[in-house]
């Protein structure tokens, strides 16, 4: 203690303002720490730091070295730490991610620690630790599935960790679903701050709960249908509890609760458990039968398996628990087996210290036990107390009914008078029970069960008790195990129906889940006439006792669903309860359940013990029961208490989170309902407004109508006004026009005035002028007067002179009277003569006129005549023309006729020729050339004349022909016959002596065109003449010659030559050749001559004609 005081001083010095002092103290501390390996100093430092928040201490702590920082063997600390970590993790999802691997590492280590148990840790602690590790597993898996899974993969792929995995981690994994993030997310995505930003702490907690299959942890809000599991789980748990190794302490209620469900345990075999169930039943079967009528061996064997324990695998893992209680049970052999755990009153010291100190002592016997205890022993153990438990069930708690409960509780309370809290609670519970008995029936139909606050009240109970216990711990220096155990028993009673762990979790989580549990518990209570009925009642009591302020809102918010749900669930559960034989269950219990059970059992044991023992006997000698030293026991209990406290805190944290969430959800609900109401209100308003609108519309229409009317009126007024205006304008215009007119008039008047003025001026001037004139005239007048006077004077003179003249005339007439007669006679004569002449002239003129007329007449006559003449001429012309046309036609006709006759003649001649040919042949024989010649000549002449007249040219050609060849031997003769060459030739030709071969004629005529050209090539022909003609000419000459120089010597030669030429020319013709010799013969030759000549001539003519054309 002195040392402690010293330390306190030093610590106070550490905060001194002097640097040197602080450094000194720090060095002292460090040295001390280095030298002393105990945890004392460190603990002191930590405490101090927590108290003062002193920085130097923190500094010292952070620089701690080897021996001190390895303190993790303390389960309590570890559990506390882990729970803190779990609590913290959802709060710092983002900032905690850099330590993620540390967290994983913690998990890895702790899980292996659970298995290996490095220190001498009591199994009880381990349960706690395991539970916390399990929670950590959930949290890590829930928050960082990918990372965690990858860690697990890497960590447990190692050989040395395999066992841990198999034993610890794998069973944990049975209680989680596959995290959706494993499918959709990635490692990086998990650490994405955006993911966490959306979630609040309680959201994270719920998220983690969602993936859990553990009904104590799980959240059902997503509608994963775990209803079966839960309904199955709940009884299972209770059955488990009853079937666990603590059966002896527990069966008082365990049996009662488990009975209805024990059969359902049949199907509780999961792969992992199967071997156990198979192995264990043999012993169980024997042990269990007496337990209950409904008790089935299979249920027992299912129970024997410690599925909920972390060491799920039978021998070793179930070991810790069984050992813990087994040792106690086995070690004592008495009904007070539990007192083995009850420690003697511990000296007042820090719980940490106690744990620390007790650890080695507590572990030592355990190890021994472990080595000693064989398996059969382990299994045998339970049923010994079991039997006893059965007995107790009937005599003890088992017989406690609902009606009895208050009394029972009251008993309990009376037994534990010493503790005020307990008393209070007992009183409350009593009170409540009184209420509940009265209110139980009406409450149920009210649907109150669905409200989560029934459940909510329950966590309040353990909390209260817990706080009570803590307070007792805090206040009373000596921890009383009985007290604590009693504390536990308080909440324990309800736990028969719903475990404390379960309730806060599901109850606060949400109404349906809680509902279900509640319902399940209700079911249980309904079905079994056992104390189980109490919890709901109590729950109700608690709920009604302290109703949360927002309780009623749920009813308002979700009445239908709640009612529906309740009815459905009750029905379902009833069915299940009836046909519970077929119920199936989930595999293994979670560490949480194990822990629950541990606590329950601990509580049971304590309560039982306390029942037996007289409470006041605090000073009981614990050693009397043969257990471990009491100090150690107390320390263990304290530690357990601490652990429980931790657990409680953790649970409270969870509850808070749930409450938070609940509140939020509630707020949402409220908001939604408010919005709905608001909506409805808005709708009403809308309707009202619509009505208003309708009204407004109607009024608008009215207004419009009125407006229209007004407008019409206005229009009419406007039109009237317009018309008025128009009229006025018209008037105005009229006036204007009038004024214009007047003005023009005015101007006219002005002009007139001006004109008048001018005229006035003029008149004035005229007046002046006239005055002037007047003066002049007056002057003239005076002058004229004077002139008149003169004239009068002169007239008088004239008269005088006239008288004188008359006098003279009288004198004169008297003197010449006889001469005038003669003159008169003469005059008369002349006059007569003149008249005569005048009539004569008249006569002459008349004559002239007549003559002229006559001339005109004659002239017109003449013109007529001329015209007539012209017409006549024209007519004549016309007639002439006509006649000419006719004449032309006639002429042409005549021409044609002539041609025809020519043709005819030709034809006739031809025919004659033919005839004559024949005739000549005869004449030649008769030698009558004369007659023939005469006839020939006559014919020839006629022909000549004809031909001459028609074709003058024709004649010329031979004539020229003849003239051009005078040098020729026959030329002279030919020239001689120029006058009638044709005739001559014909006459000559007609001589019988000149017969060019009789065939030559036709021959040549045939050939004239064909052979003409070649013959023209001969030297005898004349180039200027047509070839045929030359040929003919040659022939004619030859003939001529023949005639003139008849029988000339050369004749035969020329003829021969000719014939030869012909022959050469036409040599090809064999026919000609054959006849040629004949032609050369003299007598034969002349006969065809005339014919040939005629032919030639005709040819000639033809040719001439052709040429002409």
């Amino acid at each position: 203690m002195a040392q402690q005081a010293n330390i306190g001083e030093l610590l106070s010095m550490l905060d001194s303002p002097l640097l040197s002092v602080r450094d000194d103290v720090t060095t002292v501390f460090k040295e001390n720490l280095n030298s002393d390996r105990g945890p004392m100093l460190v603990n002191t430092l930590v405490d101090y730091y927590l108290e003062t928040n002193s920085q130097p201490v923190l500094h010292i702590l952070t620089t701690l070295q080897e021996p001190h920082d390895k303190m993790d063997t303390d389960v309590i600390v570890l559990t506390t730490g882990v729970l803190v970590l779990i609590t913290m993790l959802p709060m710092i999802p983002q900032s905690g991610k850099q330590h993620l691997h540390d967290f994983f590492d913690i998990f890895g280590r702790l899980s292996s620690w659970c298995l290996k148990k490095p220190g001498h840790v009591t199994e009880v602690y381990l349960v706690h630790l395991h539970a916390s590790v399990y929670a950590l597993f959930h949290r890590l898996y829930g928050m960082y599935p990918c990372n965690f899974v990858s860690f697990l993969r890497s960590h447990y792929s190692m050989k040395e960790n395999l066992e841990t995995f198999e034993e610890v981690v794998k069973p944990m994994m049975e209680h989680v679903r596959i995290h959706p993030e494993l499918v959709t997310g990635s490692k990086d995505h998990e650490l994405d701050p955006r993911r966490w930003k959306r979630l609040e702490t309680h959201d994270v907690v719920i998220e983690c709960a969602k993936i859990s299959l553990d009904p104590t942890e799980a959240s059902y809000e997503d509608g994963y249908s775990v209803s079966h599991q839960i309904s199955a789980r709940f009884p299972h748990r209770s059955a488990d509890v009853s079937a666990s190794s603590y059966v002896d302490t527990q069966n008082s209620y365990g049996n009662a609760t488990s009975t209805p469900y024990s059969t359902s345990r049949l199907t509780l075999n999961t792969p992992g458990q199967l071997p156990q169930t198979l192995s264990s039943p043999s012993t169980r079967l024997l042990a269990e039968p007496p337990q209950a009528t409904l008790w089935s061996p299979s249920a027992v064997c299912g129970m024997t398996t410690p599925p909920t324990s972390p060491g799920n695998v039978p021998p070793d893992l179930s070991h810790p628990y069984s050992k813990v209680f087994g040792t106690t049970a086995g070690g004592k052999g008495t009904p007070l087996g539990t007192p083995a755990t009850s420690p003697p009153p511990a000296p007042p010291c820090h719980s940490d210290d106690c744990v620390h100190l007790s650890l080695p002592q507590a572990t030592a016997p355990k190890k021994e036990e472990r080595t000693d205890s064989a398996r059969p022993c382990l299994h045998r153990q339970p049923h010994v107390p079991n039997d006893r438990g059965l007995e107790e069930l009937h005599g003890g708690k088992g017989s406690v009914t609902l009606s009895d409960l208050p009394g029972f509780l009251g008993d309990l309370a009376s037994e534990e008078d010493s503790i005020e809290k307990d008393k209070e609670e007992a009183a409350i519970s009593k009170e409540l029970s009184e209420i509940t008995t009265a209110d139980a029936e009406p409450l149920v139909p009210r649907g109150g069960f669905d409200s989560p606050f029934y459940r909510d009240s329950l966590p309040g109970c353990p909390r209260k008790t817990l706080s009570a216990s803590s307070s007792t711990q805090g206040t009373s220096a000596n921890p009383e195990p009985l007290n604590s155990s009693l504390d536990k028993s308080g909440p324990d009673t309800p736990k028969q129906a719903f475990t404390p762990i379960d309730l806060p979790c599901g109850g606060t989580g949400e109404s349906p889940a809680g509902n279900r549990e509640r319902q399940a518990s209700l079911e249980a209570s309904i079905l079994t006439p056992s104390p189980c009925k109490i919890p709901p009642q109590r729950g109700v009591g608690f709920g009604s006792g302290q109703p949360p302020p927002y309780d009623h809102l749920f009813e308002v918010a979700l009445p239908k669903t709640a009612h529906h749900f309740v009815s459905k669930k009750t029905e379902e559960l009833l069915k299940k309860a009836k046909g519970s034989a077929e119920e199936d269950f989930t595999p293994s219990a979670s560490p949480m359940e194990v822990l629950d059970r541990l606590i329950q059992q601990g509580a049971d044991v304590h309560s039982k013990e306390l029942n037996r023992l007289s409470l006041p006997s605090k000073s009981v000698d614990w050693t009397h029961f043969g257990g471990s030293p009491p100090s150690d026991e107390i320390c263990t209990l304290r530690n357990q208490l601490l652990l429980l406290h931790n657990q409680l805190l953790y649970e409270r944290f969870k509850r808070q989170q749930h409450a938070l969430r609940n509140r939020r959800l509630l707020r949402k609900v409220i908001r939604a309902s408010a919005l709905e109401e608001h909506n409805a209100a808005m709708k009403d308003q809308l309707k009202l407004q619509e009505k208003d609108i309708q009204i407004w519309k109607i009024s608008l229409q009215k207004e419009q109508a009125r407006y229209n009317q007004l407008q019409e009126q206005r229009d009419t007024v406007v039109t009237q006004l317009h018309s008025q205006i128009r009229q006025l304008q018209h008037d105005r215009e009229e006036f204007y026009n009038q004024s214009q007119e007047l003005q023009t008039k005015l101007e006219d008047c002005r002009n007139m005035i001006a004109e008048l003025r001018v005229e006035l001026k003029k008149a004035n001037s005229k007046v002046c002028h006239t005055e002037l004139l007047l003066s002049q005239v007056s002057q003239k007048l005076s002058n004229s007067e004077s002139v008149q006077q003169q004239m009068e004077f002169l007239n008088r003179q004239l008269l005088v002179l006239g008288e004188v003249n008359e006098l003279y005339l009288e004198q004169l007439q008297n003197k010449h009277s006889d001469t005038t007669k003669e003159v008169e006679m003469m005059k008369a004569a002349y006059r007569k003569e003149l008249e005569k002449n005048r009539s004569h002239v008249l006569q002459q003129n008349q004559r002239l006129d007549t003559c002229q007329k006559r001339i005109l007449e004659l002239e017109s006559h003449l013109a007529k005549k001329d015209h007539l003449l012209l017409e006549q001429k024209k007519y004549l012309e016309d007639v002439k023309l006509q006649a000419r046309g006719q004449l032309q036609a006639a002429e042409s006709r005549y021409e044609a006729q002539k041609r025809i006759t020519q043709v005819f003649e030709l034809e006739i001649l031809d025919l004659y020729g033919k005839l004559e040919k024949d005739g000549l042949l005869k004449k030649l024989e008769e030698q009558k050339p004369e007659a023939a010649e005469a006839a020939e000549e006559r014919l020839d002449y006629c022909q000549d004349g004809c031909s001459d007249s028609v074709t003058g040219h024709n004649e010329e050609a031979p004539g020229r022909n003849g003239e051009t060849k005078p040098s020729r031997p026959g030329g002279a003769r030919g020239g001689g016959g120029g006058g009638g060459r044709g005739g001559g030739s014909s006459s000559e030709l007609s001589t019988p002596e000149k017969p060019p071969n009789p065939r030559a004629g036709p021959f040549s005529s045939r050939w004239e065109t064909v052979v003409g050209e070649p013959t023209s090539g001969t030297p005898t022909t004349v180039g200027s003449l047509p070839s045929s003609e030359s040929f003919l000419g040659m022939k004619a000459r030859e003939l001529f010659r023949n005639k003139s120089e008849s029988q000339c010597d050369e004749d035969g030669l020329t003829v021969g030559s000719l014939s030869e030429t012909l022959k050469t020319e036409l040599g090809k013709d064999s026919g000609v050749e054959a006849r040629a010799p004949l032609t050369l013969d003299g007598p034969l030759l002349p006969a065809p001559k005339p014919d040939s000549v005629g032919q030639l001539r005709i040819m000639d003519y033809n040719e001439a004609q052709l040429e002409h054309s």
Partner: protein
Amino acid sequence: MTEDSQRNFRSVYYEKVGFRGVEEKKSLEILLKDDRLDIEKLCTFSQRFPLPSMYRALVWKVLLGILPPHHESHVQVMTYRKEQYSDVLHALKVIRFVSDATPQSEVYLYMHRLESGKLPRSPSFPLEPEDEVFLAIAKAMEEMVEDSVDCYWIMRCFVNQLNSKYRDTLPQLPKAFEQYLNLEDSRLLSHLKACCAVSTLPYELWFKKCFAGCLPESSLQRIWDKVVSGSCKILVFVAVEILLTFKIKVMALNSAEKITKFLENRSPLPLKNFDSSRGREQKCMRRSSCHRRLLPSE
């Protein structure tokens, strides 16, 4: 006044509006009603408008001098002509130059030859190129004029006109043809020149035979209307138009022989080209009249 009243009073406006030859028949009838027919007017008319077929023979006969301008003497003259025809025919029959079996065109040929005094000695006498021309025209004329007397006379005078009146102008037509073709389509002409086909074109067919046997009678009649009325220039335009019509085909041909052959084988034009040839003929009429107006000397 009577004549005018018979005429459609609108006829005055037809020409103003642009219709031509609407009242041709009427106006021709009016022309023919004159006693002493006005040859000049008839000439102008027949050059300007196509003659109605019912008056064609009469107009031709008048224009060719077969009938005098006086109606009075028509009958008498016609009897003369008929007698002459029958006499000549008779003579030919007498001298057995022709028989009933002799084709009419040959009969006409011999008659013509006889009348011109160039009758060959025998019917088997080979034909001269002139005779070929005559025969071609005769064949065409046969189709046009029904009455053989008329036919013979018209043909006779037509040929005589060709031989006398157009003797000098006909040989110049090929040159005129080239000239006008150059005006119309120099490319075609150059193509022809390049092929040396200009000289070998069927000028004889075109200008001597006056397209007899080359064009269908109905078209030929209209061309001959112009020829009869004194314009042989029409032949040139017809020829040019034929070439232009077959331009594409002619352009496709490369050698002179082919072109000549092609153009010669156009006779008579296939029936399907009849309408187009008709249109072409009208076109060339218009063109010819247009040219005539442009070149009044011709």
